[in-house]
């Protein structure tokens, strides 16, 4: 087993680190306070190919692997959790399913613009009554044979990149099927473009963290999309959604890892400078032991995240392997570590940790969502235990 990063990955990490320090960090606090989507950063990331990292070159991407993509989300999230999730939701939840399940025509139409960052992507599964429980879906897609179109009705909520995206992968109910003697909803997935008549936006969510991320409700009212926009086979939407979330969890795990690392780095600097009782608080054994425990957990999280990314790389290369459990473990652990690390880092900052001028306050708010979206920690435990007890 080799834990050494290749030259490519070392160079890529340095690139992402430099970009994050110079272009992302200076805006992080401001966009959080203003709840403002960082369009200017997205344009810069597009220019340097950050929105198409694991996409083949012939499809307009960078031709890199999932580990490189995960490292990008990690480094961005070290300084700004919002910027990390913009890349993650776009890449894992929109580009990936179109690349994996799209027809040659769909890939040609959508992937190059998404990979170059000319267009931004989003994914709509969650509904007010259906998050993890996909059978609770209410959004319907009915096929109109007369016009050869699908007609979408319903709404999706908590959608990342909501109003800022151009291309959406949407999950909807297309009928009923009998499965093991029970009538179940048949679920399919679709590609919907912004500007399609009948597709509008509802309220913007006012969130605890990742405040600059554009989180919106999507509303479909007799929204007609061409028959050719069915993504994958009719009735395979649930499998597509679950597979997409497996990949998405690697992105969110990388985001959580980045937030934890960012908080730890900031706190290490702080405790060396902060003086109490005539010496720096870094000289107190409590500080030292807390930091030692946090650093150990961050390192463990990193190994899980990189392992999951590597497993997906094997899958992409054609190996018959599943990365579902690795992705669930990485997300579960990294998210819980992010929450613990940021909470303890705020504590080590004392009163200043509670003040917005110090970044750890934002990092603690940003960390919480990683335990919730793309499958809560409880869902990750279901995925992991399901594989143990099958």
């Amino acid at each position: 087993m080799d834990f050494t990063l290749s030259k490519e990955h070392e160079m890529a990490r340095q690139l992402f680190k430099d970009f994050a320090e110079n272009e992302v960090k200076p805006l992080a606090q401001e966009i959080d306070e203003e709840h403002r989507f960082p369009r200017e950063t997205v344009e810069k990331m597009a220019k340097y190919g950050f929105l198409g990292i694991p996409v083949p070159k012939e499809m307009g991407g960078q031709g890199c692997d999932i580990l490189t993509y995960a490292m990008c989300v990690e480094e961005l999230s070290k300084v700004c959790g919002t910027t990390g999730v913009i890349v993650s939701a776009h890449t894992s939840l929109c580009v990936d399913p179109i690349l994996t399940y799209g027809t040659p025509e769909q890939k040609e139409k959508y992937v190059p613009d998404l990979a170059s960052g000319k267009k931004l992507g989003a994914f709509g599964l969650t509904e007010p009554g259906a998050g993890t429980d996909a059978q609770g879906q209410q959004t319907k897609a009915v096929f109109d044979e007369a016009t050869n179109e699908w007609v979408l009705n319903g709404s999706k909520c908590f959608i990342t990149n909501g109003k800022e995206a151009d291309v959406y992968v949407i999950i909807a109910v297309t009928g009923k099927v009998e499965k093991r003697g029970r009538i179940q909803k048949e679920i399919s997935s679709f590609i919907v473009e912004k500007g399609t008549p009948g597709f509008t936006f509802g309220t913007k969510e006012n969130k605890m963290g990742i405040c600059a991320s554009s989180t919106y409700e999507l509303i479909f009212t007799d929204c007609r999309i061409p028959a050719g926009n069915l993504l994958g086979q009719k009735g395979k939407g649930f499998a597509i959604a679950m597979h997409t979330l497996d990949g998405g969890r690697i992105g969110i795990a990388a985001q959580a890892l980045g937030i934890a690392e960012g908080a730890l780095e900031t706190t290490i600097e702080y405790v060396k400078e902060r003086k109490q009782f005539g010496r720096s608080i870094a000289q107190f054994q409590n500080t030292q032991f807390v930091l030692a425990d946090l650093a150990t957990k961050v390192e463990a999280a990193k190994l899980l995240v990189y392992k999951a990314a590597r497993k997906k790389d094997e899958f992409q290369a054609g190996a018959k392997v599943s990365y579902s459990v690795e992705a669930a473990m990485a997300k579960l652990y990294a998210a819980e570590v992010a929450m613990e690390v940021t909470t303890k880092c705020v504590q080590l900052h004392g009163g200043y940790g509670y003040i917005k001028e110090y970044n750890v306050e934002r990092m603690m708010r940003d960390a919480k969502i990683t335990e919730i979206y793309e499958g809560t920690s409880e869902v990750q435990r279901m995925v992991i235990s399901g594989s143990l007890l099958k």
Partner: protein
Amino acid sequence: MKIVVCIKQVPDTKGGVKFNPDGTLDRGAMLAIMNPDDKAGLEAALRLKDQYGAEVTVLTMGLPKATDVLREAIAMGADKGVLVTDRVLGGADTWATSTTIAGALRNMEYDLIITGRQAIDGDTAQVGPQIAEHLGLPVISYAQDIKVEGDKVVVQRQYDDRYHVVEVKMPALVTALSELNDPRYMTPGGIFDACKAEITTWGRADLKDVEDGNLGLMGSPTKIAKASDKVRKGAGEKVTPDSPDEAVAYIVGKLKEKHVI
């Protein structure tokens, strides 16, 4: 158009300079980066490439590890990399370095050679102009803007309080300032390609029209007697004499005290 950009891998001096006990630089203890002036020169070349479709080759002399900066340059958009490395070339001062680089350039095709003004580990600003001298090329140093018009290169040469616009027929050599531009980032895909790219490696035998006596430590007229980190200046002493005569007397006294006069 063919452009060769001469670049150097240097220790990052941002966090201070570290020395070995013998006074030489402890390069292993410092992060190695592309010299900032050279990076600006590379960016200028890449902009000319974007504009006119030039072929950009990066050239460096150094240890095998210096391929890192060549790969970084390729990941930014350069087309080819050439490393000149040989034990006999080690310990070179500006004279031996410029002789070596000129020996490599004699094997290459170019319309324009761009070097950085100076490297942050030596601060001599001599190598660029010396290369031009070896090759019999016109040189424009301290470029803050570079344009190409037909077969001419038009450069704004920086001075303290003004700039001169100088134009010269190519082939020519230009030395670039880090203020010239904001160098672009690498791209992730560029990095993966750069790591697979073949780097041309030349040794002493590949250098054209150079004499051994002008190479490496033996060919270097410069001998370093002592090296030290920058000494931080104190806050200084403020005095407010009552008259100009008193001020003169005070200054003269201080100069005498320091044995300046």
